[in-house]
């Protein structure tokens, strides 16, 4: 990072800043507390609504502390609302997509960062740019490709690739791969060249260099990227919306929107569904906050 900056040479009297220091900190705390409370209100309100049975809100109104508080809405959303199915669908899509993305991106990143080669930069640019495109730009052709890709009915009940998890996994992988390749190649470039030079002298082939030298060293980057990708793909609303037509095959993030119509006026249940959807991300956030933050700042190219 080149830090070529004009030093702020100014002719202001230094006296200006001395008096205002302690007061400013006091104000900072008030401001931050107010902002933090405002920040928590939407989530808090969802949780509050979710914890109250619809009977008590009907009786006492939504803005009251009266009545029961329990987890009935959660159990109802989980069983009757189909959230157990949706949640499982999310797992089926997210786990393979993240593993595939990281694996393919690590291959590509290794090739473009550890071996000098003619089209390195061109390919890396292509991958990075692909990730920055708005997904809507490629939606129509991808939908048509999936629709006209005919497969036996024993494989997919639509007779084509629509309504399958494979197409959602494939497209998510292709879309996220660009970003991961970019981040991993930056990471691998920062690894010392001597590591693989030495292996080369020992007669280690490309695959062994990748597998036994570079991969183990990339663990911190994988941890950060993996966490980030789990969140990204779990949070993906768009691709299942395009490809999956059967409501019971939707992952949770896309399915929750259907709940709006399904449980009209039962906001308690909708709130419970929203809270259930938040829980996995919140757990990851609490356990792996450092990894997630590292992932985001590592590849701040993410749009």
């Amino acid at each position, binding site marked *: 990072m080149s830090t070529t900056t004009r*030093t702020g040479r100014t*002719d202001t009297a230094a006296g200006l800043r001395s008096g205002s220091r302690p007061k400013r900190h006091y104000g900072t705390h008030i401001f931050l507390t107010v902002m933090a409370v405002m920040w928590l209100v939407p989530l808090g309100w969802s949780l509050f609504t979710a914890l109250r049975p619809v009977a008590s809100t009907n009786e006492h109104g939504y803005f009251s502390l009266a009545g029961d508080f329990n987890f009935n809405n959660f159990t109802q959303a989980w069983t009757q609302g189909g959230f157990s199915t949706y949640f499982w669908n999310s797992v089926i899509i997210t786990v393979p997509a993240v593993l595939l993305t990281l694996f393919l991106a690590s291959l590509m990143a290794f090739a473009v960062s550890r071996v000098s080669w003619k089209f390195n930069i061109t390919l890396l640019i*292509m991958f*990075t740019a692909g990730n920055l*495109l708005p997904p809507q730009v490629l939606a129509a052709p991808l939908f048509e490709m999936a629709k006209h890709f005919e497969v036996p009915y024993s494989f997919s009940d639509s007779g084509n690739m629509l309504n399958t998890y494979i197409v959602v996994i494939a497209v998510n992988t292709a879309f996220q791969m660009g970003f991961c390749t970019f981040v991993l190649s930056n990471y691998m*470039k920062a690894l010392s060249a001597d590591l693989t030079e030495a292996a080369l002298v020992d007669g280690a082939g490309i695959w062994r260099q990748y597998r036994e030298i570079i991969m183990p060293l990339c663990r911190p*980057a994988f941890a950060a990227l993996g966490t980030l990708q789990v969140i990204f793909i779990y949070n993906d609303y768009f691709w299942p919306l395009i490809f999956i037509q059967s409501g019971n095959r939707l992952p949770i993030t896309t399915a929750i929107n259907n709940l709006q119509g399904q449980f009209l006026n039962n906001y308690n249940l909708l709130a419970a569904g929203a809270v259930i959807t938040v829980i996995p991300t919140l757990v990851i956030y609490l356990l792996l906050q450092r990894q997630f933050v590292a992932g*985001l700042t590592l590849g701040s*190219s993410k749009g």
Partner: protein
Amino acid sequence: MSSTARDLVPPEARAPEGAPVRRAKGGRVRRLSGRDKLVLSLMVGIPTLIELTLVWLPTLMSVGLSFTRWNGLDLGAIRPAGLDNYQYVTQDYPPFWPAVQHNLLWLLFLALVATPLGLLLAVLLDQNIRGSKIYQSIFFAPVMLSLALIGIIWQLFYQRDNGLLNFLLGTAGTPQAVDWFGDSSVNIWAAMIAATWRHAGYVMLLYLAGLKGVDPSLKEAAAIDGANGFQTFFRVVFPAMRPINIVIVVITIIESLRAFDVVYVINRGTNGLEMLSALVIQNLVGEGQVIGVGSALAVVLLVISLVPIVFYLSRTFGKEGKA
């Protein structure tokens, strides 16, 4: 940014600072055996093939389809249409210009409200105040949520009769109560505030990382020169964060072009919430698919988004390309 990647690399494996990343070309490639060449070509070939078929080919197909008329059913029924779709979109398609305006408004709001707010939070939290970590966690929490879910959560907050906001304003249950997501004169603002909730936390996080990377001696030098807090920040610290600033500019533009999930969850991007990305999808799904029109809209979106993409890529890869 590669400097942040470096920080994660264990020191013993780190390439020496300033050392040439690549050795002289040629020499190493010649040492590759046939097997190595095969392995390498698979390593490059498989991901590249996937990227080309599932990202770049569809992008080109969008461009191609935008010059055709097609209902999406029979491949043989694709008819050339010249520029008809573009003419239709810009002249006879009522939601197009409102959508362009809304995308612009969204961009301005993120750029002038959400991003500065995130920067402000980062600067305040960077000065080692008590409870800084707790504040950070709170502001950052919405970044973990999908925009679709954010739409739902804010729907609960914004509802006309049972929403918290109308209650706090004292209008709940009265005729003055506003349906924040339903009323076409206010819903875009309500949606932008919901998007800000997430965007500001994201920007805060990136700037917190950026601020840590600024050499403290720069600030000290400025203080010795008699600069006050504001001057130090705007003339020294902020310009020193140039790489992060570029990333933030690009993210802000791209987020505003992608503002799809929120509006689609609220009302599928209609009635005051028209957005280019939502219009693309409206023309592709449901009955009466008009692939040509949808693709023309997608191409408009593509051309606009190429501006920040090219800007970003030339900044990031410009140096390497020349070296």
